[in-house]
C-alpha cells in the first residue's frame, strides 16, 4: 500500500471523530511515513512498517474519551441554523408538555443504565455468595455431625461430617471458577465499552466506505 491509500483508508476509518482529532492523527502518520522515506526506505515499506490499520485505528479510538466522541456526534446532529421565532414560541408554550416528558425519559434512561450497572456487579457477587454458602454448608455439616456424635447417633454423625467435608472441598475449586468468571465478565465490559465507541463512529460512515 502506498502513502496515499494508507492515509485515505485511515481517514475513512476515523470518520465521525472530531475534525481536529482526525487531522492530528493523519498528520502524525504522514510525518512518520515521510521520515522513513527520507531515511532511505521505499514508500510501500514505510507504510507497512506502521503496522496494521485496524490496530492503529483501535489505538486512536481507545485514547479519545467517549465524552468527546459523543459531543462531536451531538454537534453534527444539531441543526446549523438558529431557531425561528415561532419555534421558540412553540417551545415555550409547549414546555408544560415536553418538559416533564423529557425529564421522565431522562430519568428512565438514567435508572436503566444504573440498573444495568448494578446487575453487572450483582451477577459477579452472586457467584461468590454461592461459593460462600457452599463453604458455610461445609462448616455447618461438620458441626452438625459433631453434635450428632455427642448425642450418640453414630451413622448420622458420619453422614453429616461427610456431607460437610464434601461441601467444604467443593467450595475451594468453585472459588477459582468464580475468579475466572469474574475476569471474563470484566473483559466483556471492556469489549462493550469499545463497542459503544465504535457505534458512534460507524453511524457516520454509512455514506462512505465500509471497512
Amino acid at each position, binding site marked *: 500500500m502506498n502513502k496515499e491509500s494508507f492515509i485515505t483508508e485511515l481517514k475513512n476509518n476515523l470518520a465521525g471523530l472530531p475534525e481536529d482529532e482526525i487531522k*492530528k*492523527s493523519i*498528520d*502524525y*502518520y504522514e*510525518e*512518520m511515513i*515521510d*521520515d*522513513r522515506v*527520507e*531515511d532511505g526506505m521505499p514508500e510501500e515499506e514505510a507504510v507497512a*512498517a*506502521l*503496522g496494521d490499520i485496524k*490496530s*492503529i485505528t483501535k*489505538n*486512536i479510538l*481507545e*485514547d479519545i474519551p467517549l465524552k468527546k466522541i459523543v459531543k462531536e456526534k451531538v454537534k453534527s446532529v444539531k441543526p446549523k441554523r438558529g431557531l425561528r421565532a415561532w419555534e421558540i414560541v412553540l417551545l415555550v408554550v409547549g414546555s408544560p408538555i415536553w418538559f416533564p416528558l423529557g425529564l421522565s425519559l431522562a430519568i428512565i434512561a438514567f435508572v436503566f443504565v444504573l440498573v444495568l450497572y448494578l446487575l453487572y456487579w450483582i451477577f459477579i457477587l452472586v457467584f461468590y455468595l454461592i461459593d460462600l454458602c457452599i463453604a458455610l454448608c461445609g462448616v455447618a455439616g461438620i458441626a452438625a455431625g459433631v453434635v450428632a456424635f455427642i448425642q450418640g447417633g453414630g451413622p448420622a454423625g458420619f453422614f453429616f461430617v461427610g456431607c460437610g467435608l464434601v461441601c467444604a472441598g467443593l467450595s475451594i475449586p468453585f472459588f477459582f471458577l468464580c475468579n475466572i468468571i469474574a475476569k471474563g465478565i470484566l473483559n466483556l465490559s471492556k469489549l462493550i465499552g469499545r463497542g459503544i465507541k465504535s457505534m458512534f463512529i460507524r453511524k457516520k460512515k454509512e455514506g462512505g466506505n465500509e471497512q
Partner: protein
Amino acid sequence: MENQMKRGLLDVCVLAAIKDEDSYGYQIIKDMSPYLEISESTLYPILRRLETAELLTVRSAEHNGRLRKYYHITDSGLERINSFKEEWKEIMKIYEFVTKEGEKNE
C-alpha cells in the same frame, strides 16, 4: 499491574528521549530502539498523553518543504524524570529484598 508499569516506563523513556534536545516522532523511536522497541501506533497515544499532562509541548517546524512536529520537554517533564529516578531507587531496594529472600529459600 504489569501493563500499568510498562505504561509508566514508556512515558519516562519518551521524556528521556527529548530531554537534551527537542526531537520528532521518528527520531524518538530510533533513539529508543536499542533499549525498548516501540511502534508508531504505541508512541502516538503516549505523546498525546504527555502533551495533555503538560509534560511536553509541541511545535511545528518546516523540514524539507513539509511540516514536522517537534516535541519539547517542560519543567514538569524534567521533574517527572527526576521523580522516576527517586522511585526507582526504592524499587531497587525492594528488588534486593526480593532476591535475597529467594536465596534463603533455596
